[in-house]
C-alpha cells in the first residue's frame, strides 16, 4: 500500500485513506469549529500526506506520521483565524463558563471528545497538543507562537475546566471519592 501511494496509485491511496481517515477525522474534529471545518482540515491533511509520502521512510509508525501532519494542518488552519492568536494568549480565562446542558449524553468516548470541544479555543488547542498528542510545552510554544509559560498556564486552566465538566457530567467521579480517571484508565 505504501509503495502504491509513493507511485501515486489511486487504489493504494484510497486504501490508506480508508484505513486512517476515521481516526484522523476525530483528531481534526477536536480542533475544528464543527464537522465541516474538521473535514476541510482532513482533506487538506490527506493531500499533504499523499504529496509528502516519499518523505516517510518507514521510521516509526505510519499512523503517527499521518497524525503529525494532521495536527500541524489543524494548527495552521486555526492560526489563519485572528481570534485564535488572542484566545491562546489569554492567561486568565476566569470568565469562561460552560453550560452543562450543552454536554451531550452519549457514549463515553464521544462524551469526552465533546467535552474537550466545549473548552475555549485556546484551552482546547493546548490541551489537545499536550495531553493527547504528547507535545511538550516548549514545542507547543513554538507551534503556536506563544511563550512556553503561557502554554503551561493554558494547560493548567484547561485541565481544571475539563475536569470540572467531566465531573459534573459524571463521566469521572469527584476527586474526594476517588482519584478520578485512574480508576477508568487501563494500565498496560
Amino acid at each position, binding site marked *: 500500500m505504501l509503495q502504491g501511494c509513493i507511485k501515486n496509485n489511486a487504489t493504494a*491511496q484510497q486504501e490508506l485513506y480508508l484505513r486512517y481517515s476515521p481516526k484522523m477525522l476525530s483528531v481534526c474534529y477536536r480542533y475544528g469549529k464543527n464537522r465541516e471545518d474538521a473535514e476541510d482540515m482532513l482533506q487538506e491533511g490527506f493531500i499533504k500526506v499523499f504529496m509528502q509520502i516519499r518523505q516517510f521512510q518507514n521510521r516509526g509508525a505510519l499512523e503517527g506520521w499521518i497524525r503529525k501532519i494532521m495536527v500541524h494542518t489543524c494548527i495552521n488552519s486555526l492560526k489563519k483565524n485572528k481570534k485564535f492568536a488572542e484566545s491562546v494568549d489569554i492567561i486568565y480565562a476566569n470568565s469562561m463558563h460552560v453550560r452543562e446542558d450543552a454536554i451531550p449524553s452519549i457514549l463515553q468516548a464521544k462524551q469526552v*471528545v465533546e467535552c474537550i470541544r466545549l473548552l475555549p479555543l485556546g484551552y482546547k488547542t493546548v490541551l489537545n497538543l499536550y495531553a*493527547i498528542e504528547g507535545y511538550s510545552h516548549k514545542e507547543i510554544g513554538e507551534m503556536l507562537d506563544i511563550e512556553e509559560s503561557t502554554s503551561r498556564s493554558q494547560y493548567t486552566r484547561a485541565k481544571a475546566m475539563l475536569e470540572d465538566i467531566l465531573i459534573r457530567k459524571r463521566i469521572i467521579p469527584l476527586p474526594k471519592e476517588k482519584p478520578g480517571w485512574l480508576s477508568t*484508565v487501563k494500565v498496560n
Partner: protein
Amino acid sequence: MERNYYTEGFENFLKEKTDEYKLYPSEKVWNNIQQSLHPRRKWPFITAALLLLGIGIGTKLAIDDWNLSPLTTIDNTNIPADKNHDLSGQAPENAVNSATSQQAAGSLSSTRIATIRPILGSNPPVMEKTERNPMSSLEMNPNINYNRAILDEQEKTDVINKRNFQVENATRPTAKVISLMNSNPVNNNGFEAGKENLISNKLNELLTEIVKVKKKTVWQLYFAPTVSYRKLIGQASKSNYSYNGILYSANLGYPSDVNDAVTHKPSLGFELGTAFIYPMSRSFRVKAGLQLNFHNYQVEAYNYIPEIASYGVGNYSQPINAVSYYRNFNGFSRTWLRNSHVMISVPLGFELKIVGNRKVSFNIASTIQPTYVINNQSYLVSTNLKNYAQEPSLYRKWNVNTGAEAFVAIKSGSIQWVIGPQFRYQLLSSYKDKYPIQEHLLDFGFKVGINKTLK
C-alpha cells in the same frame, strides 16, 4: 517529546478515550482529495467543443460558398450600368474571348460576371421560360428583345430551380446539349454573333456546373432527447476470498444474478450531432459525422458508513478496492445514485429510402459509432453485489455503439426536416474486462434534424 506521557493518568485517560472515538468522513472529502491528486483532464471537453464548432463554421462557410454560384450572384444593383458599353463594334468579341478564356480556367466567379456585364449593358439577355422541357429554357431565342429583357429575381429562381431539376434528372448527355447550343442558326450580324456566343458560353458553363453538382452532399444537424437505460450481464462472486490478509466476503444471502440484485431506472439524456450525407443512388446514401451523447440513469442504493467495495474478486489475484459509502441492500436511508456518461462518437452508416418522393419520404438508417467516453460518473456494484462505489480505473474509455433509426423526411423550402424514432446500443461493456459484470448502455430517442443540400 521531552515528557513521559503515560505516567500522567489524566492525560492517559483523555488519550485513550479520544483514540476510541472515530468519525467517518463524507464521500465528498475523498472525491476532493482524489480530484486534487488526479485532476481530470479537461482537454477532451475542449476538443469536442472546438470540433463541433469547427464543423459548424466550416459547414456554414461551405453553404455560403455554394450560394455564391454563378447564376445566383447575378445582381443588377451591384453592377454599375454603363450605357457607353453598348453591344457594338469589337467590344463584344473581346469580352466573349475574355470570358471564354476565363471559363476554361475554372468556374465563373461573381467578379468575372461583373467584368462581362458592363460590356453587355445594363440589360442582360433574357432566357425565355418554357414549360415544354426544362432544357428548352437553355435554348437561345434569336430574337431577344434587349430592351425589355431584365432577369428579375423570380426568373433567376426559376432558372436555379430548373438547374436543380436537371441535376436530379440529368440523363441527357451534356455533349448533346452543348451540340444543340452550337447548332443554333448563326446570325450574320457580328453584334448578334457576339451576343449569342456570350450566352452560349454562359450556358456551357451552366451545364458544366450541372455535371459537377449532379450528386449533392447533404449536411445534417440533429438533436434527439433520449431515454437512457442499460443492460447488465453477470453473476456475483460465489466464494470468500482473501488477499493480503483481508477477507473479502462472498455474496451469501444475496441474489446471485446481477439483474436480480440491482434496481435501476432510466433518466433523460440527449444526442446532438452533425453529419454529411452523400447520395450513392436515388435511394441509398452514406453518411459520416460527429455526435455528442449524454447518457444518464439512476441506481437505487442505501447510505452507509464507508466500507471496502471490492472488484474482480475470484477472477484475479489482486482485487481492486474502492471506498464505498453506499450499500446495495440494508443501509441507513435509501438514495438514488446518478450514473452519467458523456461520449463523443463518429457515426458512419447509411440511409435507405423505402418509399416516397422528393417532398416526403420514409427512410431507415443505421450507423456504427466508434466512441470516446469523455466523462464517466458511474457507481459500480461490487463483485459481491453488496456495495456501490466509483472506480475510474475500471471505466472503458473507447467503445463502439450502433444506432438504428426510422424517419420521415419532409421537404420544406430549401431545407428538409428529418423526424423519427431512434435506438442506440453500446456493443462493448462500459467497464474493462476484468470487471466481471458487463454493462451495455441503451438509448431510445426521438430525432429531429434538418438537412441542407450543399449546392
